[in-house]
């Protein structure tokens, strides 16, 4: 038996990775913004951010994608399938990352802010040189495990026609009538993609930890 008919599915890997990266990037930026709003001290801003986080998470990803791609696409805004998927998955990612960021901010001792202030560091430097590096170390494991989940969620983008792994598997299955092998291969690819990322994250986490070991 030749397995050559599965080759097109491999071509979907690049799209899966690109979409995951794009959704993660959208999520990081919007998530940082939402987190900033929640901890800003303004009651209205904080409530607005909390509400957005709830809404982003309460609607299934496929509904977000359809709402953006078919809904907004029907006259409001012309948007490509890839961009729609990146935006839709990005919104959900933003909500989840905002909570991860907020948890990390709480975990950083208030003395760190005070010390930076006492040293006379300007506001920007206090944040970028003192707080953010510590947040990065605390949040890295959570961000990576979220990203691994996100890779699997990008399969949903196949429903709006992004040519990623699940889309290719579906095509191959329809063309060859070998659904069993096609979808099993696609499933193994998702597992195969997450393993090296998990390993790399563990290694980076150990290195970051060893820097601050007490």
């Amino acid at each position: 038996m030749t397995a050559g008919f599965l080759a097109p599915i491999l071509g979907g890997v690049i799209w899966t990775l690109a979409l995951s990266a794009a959704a993660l990037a959208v999520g990081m930026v919007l998530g940082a913004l939402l987190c900033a709003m929640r901890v800003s001290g303004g009651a209205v801003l904080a409530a607005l951010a909390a509400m957005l986080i709830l809404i982003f998470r309460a609607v299934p990803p496929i509904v977000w994608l359809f709402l953006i791609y078919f809904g907004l696409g029907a006259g409001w805004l012309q948007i490509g399938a890839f961009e729609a998927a990146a935006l839709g998955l990005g919104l959900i990612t933003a909500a989840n990352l905002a909570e991860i960021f907020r948890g990390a901010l709480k975990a950083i001792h208030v003395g760190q802010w005070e010390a930076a202030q006492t040293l006379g560091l300007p506001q920007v430097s206090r944040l970028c040189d003192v707080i953010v590096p510590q947040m990065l170390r605390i949040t890295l494991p959570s961000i990576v495990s979220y990203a691994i989940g996100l890779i699997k969620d990008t399969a949903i983008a196949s429903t709006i026609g992004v040519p990623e792994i699940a889309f290719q598997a579906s095509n191959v299955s329809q063309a060859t009538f070998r659904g069993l092998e096609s979808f099993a291969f696609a499933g193994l690819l998702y597992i195969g993609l997450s393993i090296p990322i998990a390993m790399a994250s563990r290694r980076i986490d150990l290195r970051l930890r060893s820097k601050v070991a007490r």
Partner: protein
Amino acid sequence: MTGLLDFWNQSLPQLLTGFTLSLQVTGLSLALGIPLGLVLALTLQSASRWLRWPSLVMVEIGRGASILVLLQFVYFGLPSAGLTLSSFASAVAAFCWCTAAYTSEIIRAGLQSVHHGQSEAGEVLGLDPAEILRFVILPQGLPVCVPTLLGFSILMLQASSLAFVVALPELMSKAQLIGSNTFRYMPLFALTAILYAAVCIPATIVVGRLERRLSRHI
């Protein structure tokens, strides 16, 4: 504006029928999947390699492969292996597999949170391993998992929208169907989103409260 409300009013009954089916699929998958998750949590810790390895494979595939791919594997793939399931049965099978895989980890963590002195004390009292599990470990370990399991259940309700790809006439399929007849996708998917949110937002708030209450005295 009244046009929109009229349209919503017309499509709502059909969407609600779909939503009922979504809730049924989710409920059935959880009712079958969570006990299976408990079994997997126990077999994963078993001393026998013949129990441990198959369980590990089940869990790793259930967690590692995307739910959408699992669903398509069951519905479009298994028929070529001689097993043809209806879209309802495929959806329940795939979601049940996924539920079992994820909840096995949740339940394992819960059971491990029971101090090992508890099972040692059970041994000293002369209980056999099954009795220790039944009377000592499970009553203390399972309540710990409840908030996490509820949170997972909300995610499964959302995941049930994926059954749309195997032509199960649940909420998402109904919305898509009406949409392709009327071309009014925006108001339809907006209403679909509102329906999901109407269940998921209160549920999330309740689970959050429960979580805080249970962790208060820790």
